[in-house]
């Protein structure tokens, strides 16, 4: 081994060669889906045009994209923060719903408080409820060593019943045909950045939170402990890191992210609790997290890309009657192909 190689601090690969596997994965996923679409008799080019350019070609589409972007970043963080410690939170769905429930409760019960107090209160309620929903599996892990993957998933199914109860028994909106609560007080609504089409200020909160998380995991000693624990919990423990507490912390922080996502969806977007409002944020958040490969600086960019695809998917369904699930398959395929590129690089 030469001396220069040992002391070299230059990155091994250029930016392009690092981005290449991602580009190839996206192309491969579109190609595979294209073949499927072609076989099913659709106009493939028009479909892809719709998917890729809807959000960028109109003001409305762009704002739709930003609105999707907000919960996607947060549900991605809900997955990636615990995954830094090698714990897997598959429960951001439930955490989001509970966070939404918390925000709705505060927004309805204290509707008369001034905005300056009520909005932070709603968001805080969301964070606490989401964090609590993750605390249950975290405690089961801490106390009994229960695998968090299963318990976080099961908490999702429980949350469906919780919000069904809230939306049909407690604050039911009798005019809605679908389980929905009445609206929160106007003072609880997030201020708008753009009024038509409406874009709420949640996006600012999300960007700040994402930056804070990045700082925490990459620049602090506490974040280092998270990374060390995730890499090898036994070794981390041997060298004095309290790994069991860190697992709890990481899961609860993740849950708080999910809860915040729910609270922002309520205060910014729907202004009420709607059954099904979790959409497919859980799998998308996981896909974004896995695509970012633990790099918290990358998450907003990946989330934006996925938001673009998702807005395209809705347009696809409206104009070409191709089910939205098609785009979801594209996204899952991108994930698989990106993982595949690891294998190719190893060889």
């Amino acid at each position: 081994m030469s001396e220069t190689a040992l002391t070299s601090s230059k990155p091994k690969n250029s930016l392009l060669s690092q981005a290449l596997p991602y580009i190839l994965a996206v192309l491969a996923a579109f190609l595979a889906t294209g073949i499927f679409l072609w076989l099913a008799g659709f106009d493939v080019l028009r479909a892809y045009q719709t998917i890729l350019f809807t959000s960028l070609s109109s003001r409305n589409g762009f704002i739709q994209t930003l609105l999707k972007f907000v919960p996607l970043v947060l549900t991605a963080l809900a997955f990636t923060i615990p995954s830094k410690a090698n714990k897997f939170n598959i429960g951001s769905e439930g955490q989001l719903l509970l966070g939404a429930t918390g925000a709705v409760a505060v927004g309805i019960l204290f509707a008369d408080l001034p905005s300056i107090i009520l909005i932070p209160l709603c968001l805080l309620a969301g964070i606490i409820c989401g964090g609590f929903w993750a605390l249950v599996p975290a405690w089961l892990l801490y106390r009994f060593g229960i695998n968090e993957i299963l318990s976080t998933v099961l908490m999702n199914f429980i949350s469906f019943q919780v919000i069904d109860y809230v939306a049909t028994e407690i604050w039911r909106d009798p005019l809605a045909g679908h389980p929905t609560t009445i609206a929160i007080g106007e003072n609880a609504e997030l201020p708008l950045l753009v009024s038509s089409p409406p874009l709420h200020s949640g996006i600012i909160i999300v960007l700040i939170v994402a930056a804070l998380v990045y700082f925490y995991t990459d620049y602090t000693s506490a974040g280092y402990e998270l990374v060390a624990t995730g890499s090898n919990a036994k070794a981390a423990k041997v060298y004095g890191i309290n790994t069991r507490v860190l697992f709890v912390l990481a899961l609860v922080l993740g849950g708080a992210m999910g809860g915040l996502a729910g609270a922002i969806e309520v205060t910014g977007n729907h202004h009420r609790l709607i059954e099904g409002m979790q959409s497919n944020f859980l799998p998308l958040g996981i896909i974004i997290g896995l695509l970012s490969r633990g790099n918290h600086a990358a998450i907003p960019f990946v989330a934006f890309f996925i938001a673009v695809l998702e807005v395209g998917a809705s347009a696809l369904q409206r104009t070409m009657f191709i089910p939205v699930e098609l785009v979801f398959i594209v996204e899952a395929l991108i994930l698989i192909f990106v993982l595949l590129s690891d294998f190719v690089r190893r060889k």
Partner: protein
Amino acid sequence: MDFELIIGFAGLVFLAMVPYIFAGLGTMLAGQTGLFIVAQEGIMLTGASIGFLGAYWTDNLFVGVLTAIVAGGLFGLAFAFFTTTLNMNQFVTGLALFFVGLALSTLIFKLAIGVTLTPPLVPTLDKLPIPLLSQIPVVGDILFNQNIFVYLSLLLSGALYYFLYRTSYGLELRSIGENPKAADSLGINVKRGRYFAAIGGAMLISMAGVFLPLVYTGTFTEGITQGRGWLAIALTFFGGWRPHTIFIGALFFAAVDVFALRAQVFGGGIPHQFLLTMPYIATLLIMVFGSRWVRVPTFLGQNYDREKRSV
């Protein structure tokens, strides 16, 4: 309680047990070779969707089951290929396949059926009383007056137990999950064993899925599995990764299921939402108490690469 009611309840439990047994045994079979699949929910949904369509188009439930098995086999093949041949992380691969199955099931159904006001239906599977045995009082009604899925699930539990614990093939298969390097060093083909178990396991999981439209509802709906795929994973852990204990676990899960449904009828004022959370809460509790006797294959979830240098 009424005696008739208890027999009826027990009969329903044995019916509700079927998807748990199939999915649990499938998970277990793959797990015995060290493959940890978490795509159950996706595989079951795809099995349900494609299996239903197969039955709907051909008017033949058997064809439906067969299509579901083939679809499941493809998932198993993909899982084995990604993890065993390409050495990709098992958990992440499982998640990705879960997503694919989740989307694929709905996509194919929507593309095939389109938007309809009345859901497409197939006649659900009839009971198939076994001559003589079904005449036995009580036991006959519970055990031998069921549909063919129930018998199949019982037979399968026994057959898998025999295969895994009473033959040398089972010994070899289990050795792969306990220590693939040791198995490999004795000339056992680790990859082949894992491919076999993944494909077979996923086929069983898919059968658990197709059971739901063909026996319960007569049609496919989004989210028809209601988390049973995830519960099956919990069940497999709780069942100690062995066929006979998985059978017992499946009975318990089914009993909770049936009880939760029944209780809605006799509910006595308890909101039905709370009753419907019972299976999940029961599972969480089971995991707490079951963690004492859980016995997981040593190499569960770990890939094996012969030429990887370690130490």
